[in-house]
């Protein structure tokens, strides 16, 4: 990058908010170093930066907490990293409206802390809340166990302010919980991985914090039994907030079932009023006793939080060194079977595998380890997994893998005929292709 251009950038945000040279090491992506990393302090500065980038044709990579930055194909071009961490103010929180508006660079934990002080929370629980930013969570459509009852970003985001590729500031949705005026633009930015615009502010729906919150952990001899247990729970009167499943390897890896011979466990979250939570825990025990559990525990307080944290951060915890991580979406009724087949496939390739799932919504995290120096076994296993998911009518995202693997195994499935519309949307909203070029579905 020309120094004249760098000077312009410094002129916009101030020299202290621009990193260059060796300071860029935290922002190296798939072996590529950006020209600069810049940290604007206002929406106006983001806007000015994008207008400049657009004029000069510089690629821009928005960067929140960086917890999901590795998801995506290697960037076609890496110009400016645009960090949002200075845009971290909670702008409005009116408890009576159960809504809050915040700048996008606030970390989830910081936001939850502020909301908790007034008895409320944003019902999203993705991994690494201490680092992940609100904007990044929305852009990556990150979620956690409690999505089972409370939904995902698409159910909670009611308004968004975005700086478009040309620097214009665009609002979609609004600040009220019900709104059908115009197109539902917020939906478009959720899960768009920074390819359509930079989210700078978001208005979200909130919930009251529950009085009580417990986790019922039930281990079974076989994974199959877990699948059966999920079915029992869904057909019952229980209203769990989370229905997660871990296979035996995952349980051992995160140390959640010490001393128990188990092929898998069901983790049920219950929150709400004390009376409700107590009844549900008791009812869950009674119900699952019929499915032949080998162990059952109710976890509260720190033990509960630690268990959920393991579930959320499975990929980074289950093996000392994971080789790859795939996220699968299948029908809930197929989860246990798909995991069993995927486990067998990994074994055939001489690898270890562990699985966690938001079982009742059919979202599975699959982690691979082993293979030594060669990328080949990992590539072979991932190909088998992809095929398996495709045959089951689902889809998969390669969330984490070394470059050598990404060169052989696509990060995203092909989008099919709808890909045509996605491309057109991209061209309409980012005609010069400066936002995260080449990283998204269909090469967008």
């Amino acid at each position, binding site marked *: 990058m020309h120094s004249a251009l760098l000077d312009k950038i410094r002129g916009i945000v101030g020299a202290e908010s621009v990193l260059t040279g060796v300071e860029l090491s935290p922002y190296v992506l798939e072996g590529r170093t950006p020209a600069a990393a810049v940290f604007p302090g206002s929406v106006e500065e983001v806007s000015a930066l994008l207008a400049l980038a657009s004029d000069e044709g510089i690629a821009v990579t928005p960067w929140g907490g960086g917890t999901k930055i590795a998801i995506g194909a290697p960037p076609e071009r890496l110009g400016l990293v645009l960090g949002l961490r200075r845009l971290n103010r909670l702008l409005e929180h009116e408890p*009576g409206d159960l809504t809050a508006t915040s700048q996008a660079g606030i970390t989830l934990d910081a936001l939850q802390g502020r909301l908790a002080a007034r008895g409320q929370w944003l019902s999203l629980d993705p991994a690494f809340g201490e680092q992940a930013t609100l904007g990044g969570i929305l852009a990556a459509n990150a979620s956690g166990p409690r999505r089972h009852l409370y939904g995902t970003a*698409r159910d909670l985001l009611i308004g968004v302010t975005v700086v478009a590729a040309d620097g214009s500031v665009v*609002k979609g949705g609004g600040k009220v*919980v019900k*709104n059908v005026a115009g197109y539902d633009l917020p939906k478009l930015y959720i899960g768009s991985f920074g390819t359509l615009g930079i989210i700078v502010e978001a208005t979200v729906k909130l919930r009251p914090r529950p009085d009580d919150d417990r986790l019922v952990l039930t281990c079974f001899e076989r994974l199959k039994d877990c699948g059966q247990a999920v079915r029992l729970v869904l057909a019952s009167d229980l209203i769990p907030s989370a229905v997660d499943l871990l296979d035996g390897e995952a349980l051992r890896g995160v140390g959640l079932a010490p001393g128990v011979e188990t092929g898998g466990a069901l983790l049920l979250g219950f929150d709400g009023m*004390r*009376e*409700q939570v107590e009844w549900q825990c008791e009812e869950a025990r009674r119900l699952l006793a019929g499915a032949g559990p080998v162990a059952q525990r109710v976890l509260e307080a720190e033990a509960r939080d630690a268990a959920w944290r393991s579930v959320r951060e499975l990929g980074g915890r289950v093996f000392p060194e994971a080789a790859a991580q795939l996220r699968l979406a299948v029908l809930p009724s197929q989860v246990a079977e798909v995991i069993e087949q995927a486990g067998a496939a990994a074994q055939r390739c001489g690898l270890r595998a562990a699985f966690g799932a938001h079982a009742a919504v059919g979202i599975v995290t699959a982690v691979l380890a082993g293979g030594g120096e060669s990328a080949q076994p990992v590539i072979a296993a991932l190909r088998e997994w992809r095929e398996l998911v495709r045959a089951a009518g689902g889809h998969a995202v390669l969330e984490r893998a070394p470059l050598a693997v990404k060169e052989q195994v696509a990060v995203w499935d092909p989008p099919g005929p709808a890909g045509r519309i996605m491309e057109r949307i991209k061209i309409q909203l980012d005609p010069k292709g400066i936002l995260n070029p080449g990283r998204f579905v269909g090469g967008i």
Partner: protein
Amino acid sequence: MTTLTESRRQSLGRALEGIVGKAAVLTDPQELMVYESDGLTLFRALADFVVFPTSTQQVSALVRLADAEGLPFVARGAGTGLSGGCLPTEGGLVIALSRMTRILEVDYDNQLAVVEPGLVNLHLSWAVGPRGYYYAPDPASQQACTIGGNIANNSGGPHTLKYGVTTNHVLGLEVVLPDGEVVWLGGKTRDPLGYDLTGVFVGSEGTFGIATKIVVRLLKKPQAVKTVLAAFDEIDRASEAVSAIIARGLVPAALEMIDQVTIQAVEDAFGCGYPRDAAAALLIELDGLAAGMEAQAERVVAACREAGAREVRTAKDEAERQLLWKGRKSAFGAYGRVSPAYMVMDGVIPRTKLPYVLRRVNEIVAAANLRVGNVFHAGDGNLHPNILYDPRRPGEEARVVQAGAEILKVCAEVGGSISGEHGIGLEKMDYMPFIFSPADLATMHRVKEAFNPRGLCNPGKIFPTKKSCVETGPAYRAHPIEEKGLAQRF
């Protein structure tokens, strides 16, 4: 109608008949008139043809023909929309989906169903009810409106406070794009690959294409339900109770407000047991687990009492509960007794702004020398002021429209929205700038370009346009489904 030459009209008619059969094409102006309006009878526009396809293939062939011929087209469900959304503003083709009503698949294990767009909303809940499931979005028109129309308008209902609106219950769509291609957006699995096209299609008011299959979530019926009626001597007190309930950490399934004008009309007509002299009443419904239900109801009662309710009553049994809901749901039918006509407004505000905005609504309507009845989704802040008037009096309808615009301006000023469930359609195109900047609107327009680049699919809606052959008022008529007593307007 467009200005088609007679020979072109005939050749198009033959081509349409070739696709759907002779019995499924209307061309007689008398018959076409049935399709010139929707639930908002203020606007009328006549199509050149109304066609009734029975399959995705037929819809696709129709759209391909329209695209090749440069003929505008618009999907129509039950025609209960309240913003003129399904009107053929530039003539052309109305593609009526009322013969695509099948439930294609119900998968209880995965709690989903695949349905055709012409299926009537309530019929889905009826079909899955015996197994203990239901389809949550419950517009008051649910005995008549279609799931396809619900998708297009992202419709809501009284129970959307807890369970969300249509978009929260749709997983995937099979869509015929405006060039006739059939694509799936989303599907049965979650977190669809790429952009959330299902998410933007829902609420696009028929301007992105025609949905031909819809994958929806099914919910289990709750174990227990509790319904509370609270009466207040001042409307402000009722508004404050709404916020007090929310502030106590409760999320009722429904939280509705009914004002005095409405209560008296309802009591005169049906006698549902609402206190006639109350300034306002709240109808609050809790649902969920039986455990803790009593305690929650107590919290609701306490919140109402503290806000100054003069009477709080819990329905003793299902019969009393039904009676209370009847009062709420028959409000619109009851207006007929006190006024020759009324126009329903639809705006949204942050619920903490209720006291102020309700006062302003009353002022605006009084200044226009009109009367208003309020019956609405207070928990969501979704207002429905119903302005009562007499269409035979010259100029009165115009004053109603003017007062409606002022009310929406107030909604916008307090940080709200100009529509909570009825959509923009033809009615509110000119009010979009109340809440959206030129840049916001330009972005929406670009997204529309991606789906509907030639603009033939439902033209003349959402964004202001000059080219239009719509006729307006004076025109209040009760909607056919209201006349049949099937539904009331919320």
